[in-house]
Each structure stands twice: as structure tokens, then as C-alpha cells.
């Protein structure tokens, strides 16, 4: 039995003043992991300058790097430009789509994107009332539908979902209850439970908890850097 070793971190929030510092933590990562996944909020303000710092920190790693953007990376309306900078540095950037990567003889499917909020079953917003509210919830629903379709379309041995926003509330424990609707949505988990996956990774909730599970039994890990307290976590998926 071979293990697929997935290194994961989110919310690294890099800027010019910390250039070069995060990269030092990635030295030797190829000995610990087969792939690195970065769960959004790569920058602080979503500027192109910060995007270039992130691209330089992740450039030329000896293992594949897959990333999604987070809400901070959208702040300056330069999300497409930041994604392009990252792609030029060799990073695979997911935007509500999927990719299959050959990792040590295993076909690993990764599906994901930023995700969005809305809240959790029984205590969530719905597509009702003002257009602003409907648009908010519709945005999340369309993302969830895209992920579900991408998961169904992918032909892979193992499937991982990479998000910025949280799909369950268990990994938010530690955050104030009042802000849960801004931290994630159960629609994301429902979509993944329907299509199936082996693991969901997310960030965004700095005060949350690392480990949780969807209603369907899929493991969820909150890999926000302040939650981990370490440069990245490594999760091993058993592969026959």
C-alpha cells in the first residue's frame, strides 16, 4: 500500500515585508510530501505586488503546487491577474474546476475554488427577498454546483477538494457563532458529499479547529496557518 502525502496550508497572507520568509519553511518539503495545496488568502490586500511575492515564494518547488484564492486575494479586484502570476510561476490555480495530477503513480483529482459563505443547515441565508441576499446565496450555490459537476467529471484514483471557505461548522469551533455565515456554507459540503471525495481542505477561519467531518463522513481539515501553527500540515491518503 502506498500513501499519497498531501501538504496543505492556507491564509499565508504574504506581503513585501515578509518576502523570502515563508519559502524557508518549504525547504525539504519533497521529503515529506508529494504535493502542496494552498487554501487561499495568499495575500493581505490582493494587490499584484503581493501576488508576485506569493508567486516567487511558491516558484520552482520540486513537487506540484495547487492553490485557490481567498477573499483577501479578491480585495483589489485583481484576482485574475494574481492567478495569472501564480500560473506563470508553475502553480495550478483552481477556479471552480478540477485537475488530475499524476503523483507517484497515483492519479490525484483536485477540485475546488474560493467557495463562499451563507451559513450552515438550519441557520443559513436563503435565496429570498432582496436581490443582494439572493445574489449572495446564489453565488455559493453556483460554486457548489460547479464543484459537484467537476467531481463527477474527474477520472482519478483519489479526489481532494480544495477551498478557502469552510464546508462545515465543526472546523469553525473557536470562531464567534455570529460570524459563521461569513465563514462558510453547508452547500459546499452537500455538493461534495453527493459527488464523493476523500478529503476536503479549507482555510479562512483563523480561530477555528483543524479537524472535522461532513455529514457524509468525508474528512475536513482547516489548514489556516494560525490554526496549524506550523508551516504546513501533511495528510496521508492510503492508496492501494
Amino acid at each position: 500500500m502506498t500513501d499519497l502525502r498531501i501538504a496543505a496550508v492556507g491564509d499565508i497572507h504574504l506581503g513585501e515585508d515578509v518576502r523570502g520568509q515563508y519559502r524557508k519553511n518549504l525547504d525539504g518539503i519533497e521529503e515529506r510530501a508529494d504535493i502542496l495545496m494552498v487554501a487561499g488568502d495568499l495575500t493581505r490586500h490582493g494587490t499584484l505586488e503581493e501576488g508576485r511575492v506569493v508567486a516567487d515564494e511558491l516558484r520552482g518547488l520540486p513537487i506540484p503546487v495547487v492553490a485557490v484564492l481567498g477573499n483577501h486575494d479578491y480585495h483589489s479586484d485583481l484576482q485574475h491577474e494574481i492567478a495569472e502570476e501564480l500560473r506563470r510561476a508553475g502553480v495550478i490555480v483552481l477556479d471552480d474546476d478540477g485537475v488530475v495530477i499524476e503523483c507517484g503513480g497515483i492519479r490525484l483529482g483536485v477540485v475546488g475554488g474560493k467557495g463562499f459563505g451563507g451559513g450552515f443547515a438550519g441557520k443559513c441565508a436563503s435565496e429570498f427577498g432582496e436581490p443582494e441576499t439572493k445574489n449572495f446565496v446564489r453565488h455559493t450555490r453556483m460554486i457548489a454546483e460547479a464543484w459537484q459537476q467537476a467531481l463527477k467529471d474527474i477520472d482519478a484514483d483519489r479526489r481532494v477538494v480544495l477551498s478557502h471557505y469552510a464546508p462545515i461548522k465543526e472546523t469553525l469551533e473557536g470562531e464567534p457563532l455570529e460570524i459563521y455565515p461569513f465563514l462558510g456554507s453547508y452547500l459546499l459540503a452537500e455538493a461534495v458529499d453527493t459527488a464523493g471525495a476523500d478529503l476536503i481542505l479549507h482555510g479562512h477561519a483563523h480561530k477555528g479547529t483543524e479537524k472535522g467531518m461532513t455529514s457524509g463522513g468525508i474528512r475536513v481539515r482547516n489548514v489556516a496557518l494560525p490554526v496549524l501553527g506550523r508551516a504546513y500540515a501533511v495528510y496521508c491518503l492510503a492508496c492501494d
Partner: protein
Amino acid sequence: MEAPQYVAARVQAALAEDVRTHELGIRVDVRGDQLFLRGEVSGAEQRERLAQVAREAAPDLQVHNEIHVVEIERPGESEHLD
């Protein structure tokens, strides 16, 4: 006199929205003429910027910067998901 809860909310919004900080997870408490900042950031410069923005948003209060700078540790042991 502005209620302390509104002052704290205004400072918290400034920390999130000011271009120098954009920090969302900082707790702000006001007691009398004292303002307390708590939370975790990744660098000392960001901690100082947060205190500066808070001072500007509430110039009549004494700002106590209790924000903790988190040191990133080396990756620890892996978790096996079987």
C-alpha cells in the same frame, strides 16, 4: 458620549478596511478610556500597524496592544487518513 461598543466596532472596521492592515480577526475591547487589541498576526510590523490604525480611529483612547505574533513552527508529523 459615544457608547464604547460603537467605538470598538468602528476601530474593528478600521482594522479590517484600512489599506495598511486589512486584518479581520482582531478583537477590540473598550473600557473607559482604555482600548485593548487582542488576536494573532504573523509579523511584528503588522502588529504595530494595527495599533497605529487603532490610535487614529480612536485618538482619545489609550491603546493597549496585546496582539500576539505567531512564530511558524516546522511541519510536525503527518496524519494518516485510512
